[in-house]
């Protein structure tokens, strides 16, 4: 009996010893890998803890920042609400102003309509007045032309009046001179004229073109360069001279428009007549 127990205990001791040996060998064999895994896990845990601490710090910073932003946003929201309230008030005032402006606009539109009607009436009146102005302008132009014409006539007549006044003055001087002459010659100017009155002789100058004697050589005929156009008529007596020398007198026998023929009055001859001698009605 003791042998059986001893043998059993020996077998169990052998089994447990072998198990211990195998377990210790296995631990020795695989502990390096386990250690590496443990160290890796430890490093990973350390990294994770570090990352966690960083994340927590970042979270704290972010939280602080978000708190600041939140406060700022709350302030902004407060300001915005105040601005909204102010804008609401402004909107109410603007709407009231808009209503007043619309009323004012309607009033101005009505005034504008009246003003347009008045303007249209003014335009019509202006058109009529313009046409009337054109008519009056034409009449004014006609009046101006008439006035100018009348002024020209007036000037002409004034000139004629001045000329007549001058002539009247000359005539009065001439009458005075003639009256003096009559008084000196003891002629009564009121004495009536008896018989034909010879025409007044005006001074007309010409030249002798040629002279020749008649067929019987009893008289000498002279052709002169002045005629009836110069006031020369039959029976007129003209004087022939050369320079300051008196030649003779001639009596006109034939008269033509631009020439005349006269006979020499032998009783007055004082020299021979030559071509180019001067002839005049009076000296």
């Amino acid at each position: 009996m003791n042998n059986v127990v001893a043998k059993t205990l020996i077998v169990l001791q052998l089994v447990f010893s072998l198990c211990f040996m195998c377990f210790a060998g296995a631990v020795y064999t695989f502990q390096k890998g386990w250690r590496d895994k443990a160290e890796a896990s430890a490093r990973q845990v350390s990294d994770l803890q570090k990352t966690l601490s960083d994340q927590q710090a970042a979270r704290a910073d972010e939280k602080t920042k978000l708190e600041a932003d939140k406060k700022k946003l709350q302030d902004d929201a407060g300001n915005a609400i105040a601005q909204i309230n102010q804008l609401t008030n402004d909107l109410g005032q603007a709407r009231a102003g808009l209503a007043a402006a619309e009323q004012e606009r309607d009033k101005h539109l009505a005034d504008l309509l009246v003003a347009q009607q008045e303007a249209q009436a003014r335009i019509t009146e202006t058109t009529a007045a313009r046409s009337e102005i054109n008519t009056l302008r034409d009449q004014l132009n006609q009046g101006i032309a008439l006035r100018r014409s009348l002024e020209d006539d007036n000037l002409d007549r004034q000139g004629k009046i001045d000329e007549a006044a001058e002539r009247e003055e000359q005539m009065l001087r001439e009458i005075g001179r003639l009256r003096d002459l009559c008084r000196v010659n003891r002629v009564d100017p009121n004495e009536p004229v008896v018989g034909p009155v010879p025409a007044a002789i005006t001074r007309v100058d010409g030249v002798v073109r040629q002279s020749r004697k008649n067929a019987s050589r009893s008289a000498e005929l002279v052709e002169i360069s002045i005629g009836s156009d110069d006031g020369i008529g039959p029976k007129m007596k003209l004087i022939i001279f050369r320079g300051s020398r008196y030649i003779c007198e001639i009596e006109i026998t034939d008269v033509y428009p631009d020439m005349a023929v006269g006979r020499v009055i032998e009783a007055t001859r004082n020299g021979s007549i030559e071509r180019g001698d001067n002839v005049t009605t009076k000296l």
Partner: protein
Amino acid sequence: MSQQSSDPTIYDALMFVSLGAVIIGIVFWVLTLNSYGWTSG
């Protein structure tokens, strides 16, 4: 006095083997603890 047999039996061999196994296990255990510097980790 009874005469006891001094011849080793199979159980003596088994005891020897088990002792060797224990020694080997202790060696492994010591080596393992040595690698950890005799600390528990």
